[in-house]
């Protein structure tokens, strides 16, 4: 049916602005979705790649408690039991030229089967200058073993850092300054997985990390078909040492950031949802504008089905263009978003270096499909409407609006039902995060569907009042909103949802921040905190703290992981200083009794998140894999915490020392004597540390500030996403106002003909916009608050197990109102200008 196609194409091309807006709406919705998808996948992929590189060919890993594995176990397995496919590993962090790297201490003789890039024959030194014979594999083995500070990195990293073989360079491990020397580059120079890795001999790694006698883990390679070896090996392991499948271990680590990523995806879908409204708007308008043409076509014998298909086809064409643009835009946006996401993951979960992301076919296909489906879904109602066009001359606008008017209460009823259903899901879905998010969408959509009804009611209520207060023009303007609900309703809903998202998210973030800040205030009891960047504190230094003038007492903290096949649990061992008990808030129960058990009976405390995740209660026991085997510990109490991981268990240092062979201390908190000067004590600390050690010494206030900065950084992404949603809504309002203005050109013509000045016409349109903005803003308040509550009490709780007190300030609400009105007025500015320029004669010539 070429005629219909030509008609459609002609129409779309004659209205380029409208076409552009429709495309933009879809594009932005798709772009946000694609970019979040890319960012999530990019971070996840970077994590897997780096784990891949670190694990190499290992199928299993022998891991111990917090102190790792005794190295004699490795020799025992090899020499006494004849195991061959095993490799020892000492892991840590190293800073070179201000950059942080994964330090991998390997036994190069065992590497061939595990990490081919670190196997002697694959190590290269072609990028670094060397004398005769220096490039041979043997020379590199020799250098790695006997050259002090010898290390390997990828050629790209060496080049980026400007390191050459001839000059030693400074590096920092465990707070200690050392000299490094590049003796070769890792095999597979172009492999970005290797960018974050620095390889050294296991001997240097142990010396630098101060972990003499200990291994981080033993890698094991078990060939397919030799699974019986697993049980054999398992029997050889002492208490507290376990054999874990490498892949499952990686999955467990990756799973820690699942909740965070799910939340991001949900945010991106919000942008898409707003986009759907926008598309509906555009398509509905395109139908309305052509109602005469469609009626004529129907009269000429075009069937209902053909019209329906034609409109959907049109939408599909626009949707395809928009979706393609969206995918392209999204892949560009993703490059920026991924840095934010990776930084948040590195802050909270595990170090991730994303060196670049590529748009995958799957992501692109998902974006295209989502864009197209959203467009078609949004176009369904207008297309049906177009098909219902009687085969006679023009149906009047009023008929159409009457029909839309009868639809409005129906929509509201449906919305109400949806809201209630969503509430039910929320109530009944237990701990499922995804169900919580689905319910959240249901609530938003349900409440959104009630908005047209509210808009109509408010317009009827305010039109006479406005008329009395500001004259006929404003009455006309406001009543006009109510009379054109098929257009304005949708715009108001889109704006309302976008604005309610800002309320919901800001209230959630502010409540959260207040809770965290409050919690930090109470938990940061010490005056000064000392830690070794990327490592442990020197035991000698800790012992020397007592002798520093002005130090009244100190507490020490060790933060570590306990692993089992299916989980990783944060274990914190604290040596409390007198008085530091107040820093941990025990929820419910007798705090003094809890502390007594903690100190005297080896009981533990668990965090909110842990309690939520494991449904743990006071008095129950937790089973932990200690270096003395599996042991049970009584839960003395539950404490307030906002740990981003799946919860933490705290035990006293005394208890910890009894069950774990690990003397490491991560940080110390120093309490000052009455009248002691913090700066003087810090200076003494630095002196005690000596020039060869780097110490992170921070005041109480500084730690608090840093913590909150990380907190704020985490929510940058959230902010970016909801601003994008607001932008989509802004485009929506612009589109709606444009549509109205174009549609009502004749009406404006008459108004001008009966004496309304151009300025008054412009004001009329602006009042309409402002009214719509105000309605959207007002409606956004309850929607936003409900959203905030769901985010705080359901989503965050289910995702992270945090308990957050909801705090509603006036500012997010006022800000949202302003945002709604201002964006509506701004969006209406151009349509207002055009309305003002209406030439009466031209507009009415059609008549």
């Amino acid at each position, binding site marked *: 049916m070429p005629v219909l196609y030509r008609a459609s194409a002609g129409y779309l091309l004659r209205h380029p602005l409208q076409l552009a807006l429709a495309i933009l709406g879809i594009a932005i919705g798709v772009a946000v979705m694609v970019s979040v998808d890319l960012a999530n996948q990019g971070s996840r992929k970077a994590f897997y790649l780096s784990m891949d590189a670190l694990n190499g060919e290992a199928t299993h890993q022998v891991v111990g408690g917090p102190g790792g594995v005794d*190295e*004699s176990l*490795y*020799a*025992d397995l*090899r*020499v*006494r*039991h*004849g195991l*061959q496919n095993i490799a020892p590993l000492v892991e840590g962090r190293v800073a070179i030229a201000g950059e942080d790297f994964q330090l991998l201490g390997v*036994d190069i*003789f065992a590497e*061939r089967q595990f990490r081919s890039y670190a*196997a*002697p*024959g*694959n190590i290269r030194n072609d990028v670094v200058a060397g*004398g*005769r*014979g*220096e490039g*041979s*594999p*043997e*020379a590199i*083995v*020799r250098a790695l*073993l*006997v*050259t*002090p500070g010898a290390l390997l990195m990828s050629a790209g990293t060496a080049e980026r850092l400007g390191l050459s073989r001839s000059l030693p360079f400074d590096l920092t491990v465990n707070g200690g300054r050392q000299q490094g020397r590049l003796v070769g580059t890792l095999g597979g120079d172009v492999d970005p997985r290797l960018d974050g890795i620095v390889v050294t*001999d*296991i*001997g*240097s*790694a*142990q*010396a*630098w990390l*101060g972990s*003499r*006698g200990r291994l981080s883990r033993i890698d094991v390679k078990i060939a397919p078909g030799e699974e019986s070896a697993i049980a054999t090996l398992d029997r050889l392991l002492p208490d507290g040492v376990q054999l874990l499948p490498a892949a499952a271990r990686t999955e467990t680590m990756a799973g820690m950031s699942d909740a965070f990523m799910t939340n991001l995806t949900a945010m991106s879908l919000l942008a898409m949802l707003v986009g759907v409204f926008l598309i509906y708007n555009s398509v509905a308008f395109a139908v309305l504008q052509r109602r005469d043409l469609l009626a004529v076509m129907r009269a000429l014998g075009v069937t209902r089905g053909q019209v329906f298909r034609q409109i959907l086809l049109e939408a599909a064409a626009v949707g395809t263009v928009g979706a393609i643009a969206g995918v392209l835009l999204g892949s560009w946006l993703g490059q920026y978003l991924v840095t934010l996401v990776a930084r948040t993951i590195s802050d909270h979960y595990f170090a991730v270096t994303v060196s670049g992301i590529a748009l995958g076919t799957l992501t692109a296909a998902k974006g295209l499909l989502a864009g197209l489906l959203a467009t078609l879904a949004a176009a369904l109602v207008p297309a049906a409407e177009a098909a219902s066009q009687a085969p006679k001359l023009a149906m009047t606008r009023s008929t159409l609006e009457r029909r839309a008017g009868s639809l409005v209460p129906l929509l509201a009823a449906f919305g109400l039902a949806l809201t209630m259903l969503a509430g039910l899901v929320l109530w009944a879905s237990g701990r499922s995060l995804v169900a919580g998010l689905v319910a959240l969408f249901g609530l938003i959509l349900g409440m959104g569907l009630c908005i047209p009804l509210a808009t109509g009611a408010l317009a009827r209520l305010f039109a006479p009042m406005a008329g009395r207060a500001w004259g006929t023009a404003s009455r006309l303007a406001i009543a006009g909103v109510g009379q054109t609900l098929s257009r304005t309703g949708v715009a108001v809903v889109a704006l309302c949802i976008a604005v309610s998202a800002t309320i919901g998210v800001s209230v959630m973030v502010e409540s959260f921040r207040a809770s965290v800040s409050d919690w930090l205030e109470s938990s940061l009891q010490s005056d000064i905190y000392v830690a070794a960047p990327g490592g442990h504190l020197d035991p000698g230094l800790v012992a020397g703290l007592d002798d520093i003038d002005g130090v009244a007492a100190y507490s020490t903290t060790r933060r570590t992981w306990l692993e089992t096949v299916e989980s990783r649990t944060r274990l914190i061992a604290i040596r409390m200083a007198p008085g530091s008990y107040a820093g941990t808030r025990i929820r419910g129960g007798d705090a003094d009794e809890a502390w007594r058990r903690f100190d005297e009976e080896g009981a533990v405390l668990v965090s909110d998140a842990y309690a939520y995740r494991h449904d743990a209660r006071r008095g129950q026991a937790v089973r932990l894999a200690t270096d003395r085997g599996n042991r049970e510990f009584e839960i003395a109490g539950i404490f307030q915490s906002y740990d981003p991981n799946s919860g933490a268990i705290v035990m006293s240092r005394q208890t910890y020392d009894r069950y774990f062979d690990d003397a490491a201390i991560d940080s110390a908190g120093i309490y000052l004597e009455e009248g002691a000067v913090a700066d003087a004590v810090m200076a003494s600390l630095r002196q005690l540390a000596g020039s060869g050690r780097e110490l992170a010494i921070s005041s109480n206030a500084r730690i608090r500030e840093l913590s909150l900065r990380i907190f704020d950084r985490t929510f940058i992404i959230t902010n970016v996403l909801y601003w994008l949603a607001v932008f989509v809504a802004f485009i929506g309002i612009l589109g709606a106002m444009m549509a109205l203005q174009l549609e009502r050109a004749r009406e404006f013509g008459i108004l001008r003909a009966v004496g309304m000045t151009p300025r008054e016409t412009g004001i009329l349109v602006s009042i309409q916009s402002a009214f719509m903005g105000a309605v959207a803003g007002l409606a956004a308040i309850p929607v936003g608050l409900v959203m905030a509550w769901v985010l705080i009490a359901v989503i965050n709780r289910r995702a992270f197990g945090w308990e957050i007190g909801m705090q509603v300030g006036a500012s997010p609400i006022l800000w949202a109102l302003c945002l709604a009105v201002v964006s509506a007025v701004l969006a209406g500015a151009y349509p207002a200008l055009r309305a003002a320029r209406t030439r009466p004669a031209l507009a009415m010539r059609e008549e």
Partner: protein
Amino acid sequence: MYFNKVLHLSVFSVYFFLAGCQGSRDEPVPAPAEVPASSRLSELLSDGGVSGYAMADAPRDFRFPRDHGPHEAYRNEWWYFTGNLDADDGGGRFGFELTIFRFALSPNAPENDGSAWATNQVYIGHFAVTDVNRKQFHVAQRYARGAAGLAGAGTDPLRVWLDDWRVGVSGSGTGFRLQAGDGEIGLDLILEPSKPIVLNGEGGLSQKSEGAGSASYYYSIPRLETTGLLRVVGSEYRVTGRSWLDREWGSNALSARQAGWDWFALQLEDGSDLMFYVLRELDGAPGPYSAGTWIDAGGDSMPLALADVAIEVTDRWQSEHGGVYPAGWRIRVPSLGLDVRVLPVLDNQELVTTVRYWEGAVDVIGERDGRPLGGRGYVELTGYDSD
């Protein structure tokens, strides 16, 4: 066997990592970087030199069991066991080689008291079994640092180990116990000496090329009565036979004029033993430092020089990996009235690594002073892989 080999080994040992050659020789071996052997050798010679290492440059007061143990101040060292074995039930004949090499990567150990892994000592092991009846040759190798308990050597009691391959003292206290295994092959043997230790060269100082220090300390135990268990491809055999121990250590590099060597260790039925090595010059001619030792049935020994011995190649074998090895010899020592033919029990006893060498069991057939004389032995051939 001479000193060049250590250097050669220290080059190719590293290539084992690349070659990934484990288990039997049937496994495919990836090609190494294409560097001619000679240039690899010169690279090595230029690398670091020998300054700082202890040198074999003067006669030595050998003491045992002390000298069975390691000499870490020297750059290279090995414990080299070879032997011919028969299954007690008559079900097979075998040859074996179990060698543990020690290399010092630098004259001094790195200063690092923060780790038990820090060391300059590296150990490499070769284990090969020749299955004469099945005409199969199996080889395995290992490498480990001489630290953290992974590999090493000790004197009292003697023990040399690399992973679970170990050389220890036998229950009698006078002999050795060897244990090794890898994939298809394994052994657990007791070796009891039936002859005293023999010092090769001038009282154990074995000159390899010109100049002081271009030498090694070199002693052998030419007869070790051997019993124990041998595992080959799923079967375990109780075996009896005779082994040979070569011990050598030193630090010096060899001149680049030498292309390789042929080493013979023959145990003859009349109770005497012959060890001789030919250092081949680049043109293939025997070099002036070629030498050997004659040990009579009573254990008395006598050094042999190149002029004392006439060796002619009677057969050749083409390796499928390239290179033609001699595969049969006629050896005459006129002063001893000895005239024998030496024949490999299996042509293919080549250790297929990047730098390949041939080390295999041989039969000896011939006569001494007109009376028929047989025997068995081991032969090592290096420097033929680059042909």
